[in-house]
């Protein structure tokens, strides 16, 4: 028995210049907000951008972007709809608001299916919002997407950074490209910059804690006007290399 879907995955992504996985060892560090805002900024700059929410069991980018009434178009596969200038793909088109528990093999099957039927077309950037940790999603993205680059998110907390350390170690052992680490929700002083440098990877910058960011969820235009977005814009230089 052969699963035919895997053979077309590389074809589906061959016209994408850069695939960036926004990842972390822990949940709640701001991956989805960073992935969404980063995608919006890149699209505003004129790049062709896609955003793929890979957090199948707990997706949230659809809320950040206020994706409603949108559906993929069927055309020899599925074509992600465009919102705020970016092509957007999420399992929420199909699961709607229902809870969807998935175990490892089921997660992989859903990912293979979406990678094999989604026609992204030409893109400069595909930003992937990853679920937390070093489980199925991380291993599958590395397995199926050659050349994926990881943008790792931490907070100043040593608890968050400890999981990031493990993620980075694993990525390095597997020879996966790491763009660097960004420190989100920064308050006061922390030693993250020094700790990142000890890992031998790039510290991309810090994003100060913004208590008002919650109010901007669901409004892409206002989100782009925040200090949060301004801080993210500063790390673009590392992505455009």
């Amino acid at each position, binding site marked *: *028995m*052969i*699963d*035919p*879907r*895997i*053979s*077309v995955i590389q*074809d589906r992504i061959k016209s994408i210049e850069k695939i960036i996985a926004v990842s972390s060892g822990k949940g709640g560090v701001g991956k989805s907000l960073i992935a969404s805002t980063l995608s919006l900024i890149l699209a505003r700059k004129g790049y062709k951008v896609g955003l793929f929410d890979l957090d*199948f069991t707990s997706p949230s980018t659809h809320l950040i972007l206020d994706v409603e009434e949108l559906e993929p178009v*069927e*055309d*020899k*596969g*599925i074509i992600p709809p465009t919102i705020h200038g970016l092509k957007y793909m999420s*399992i929420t*088109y*199909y*699961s*709607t608001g*229902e*809870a*969807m*528990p*998935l*175990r490892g*093999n*089921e*997660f992989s*099957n*859903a990912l293979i*299916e*979406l990678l*094999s*039927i989604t*026609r992204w077309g030409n893109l400069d950037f595909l930003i992937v919002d990853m679920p937390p940790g070093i489980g199925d999603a991380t291993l599958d993205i590395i397995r199926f997407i050659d050349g994926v680059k990881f943008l790792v998110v931490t907070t100043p907390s040593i608890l968050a950074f400890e999981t990031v350390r493990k993620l980075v170690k694993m990525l390095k052992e597997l020879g996966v490209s790491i763009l660097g680490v960004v420190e989100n929700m920064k308050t006061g002083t922390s030693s993250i910059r020094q700790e990142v440098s000890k890992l031998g990877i790039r510290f991309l910058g810090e994003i100060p804690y913004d208590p008002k960011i919650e109010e901007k969820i669901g409004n892409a235009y206002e989100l782009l006007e925040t200090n949060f977005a301004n801080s993210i814009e500063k790390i673009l230089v590392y992505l455009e290399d």
Partner: protein
Amino acid sequence: MHEWALAESVIKTVIETAKKEGIGRIIEVKIKIGEMQQLEHEIFKIALTQLKPVELRDTEFKIEVDKTKLRCRVCGHEWFFKKEGFGEEILEAIHFLPEVSHAYVKCPKCGSPDFEIVSGRGIWIDSIRGLGEND
């Protein structure tokens, strides 16, 4: 249609596998389709016919439907997926992505969404029959 994307993957896999296994002329390809995904067979067959390259000109594609068997991980109950009782939108969602069944299907015995799809999930190539390159 989504069937075209899957047909394309079948053609590509058949050609790659034949090359790897040293099959010169492919006579028959058996494909299994899980009932849960509700692929439109006619569209799928048309897609296969239109997408197949010259080297598969004489290849016969046999399609078999596999019943979708589910097993509850909590109570062990086994049952077959039936589309009756689900609305059009839910069936359409499962058609695109059988895993979203976990959002809508529950074990009929204990009500848990923690079940596994034992067989009949999506699409598989069951066998490729042909003649060796030197036959």
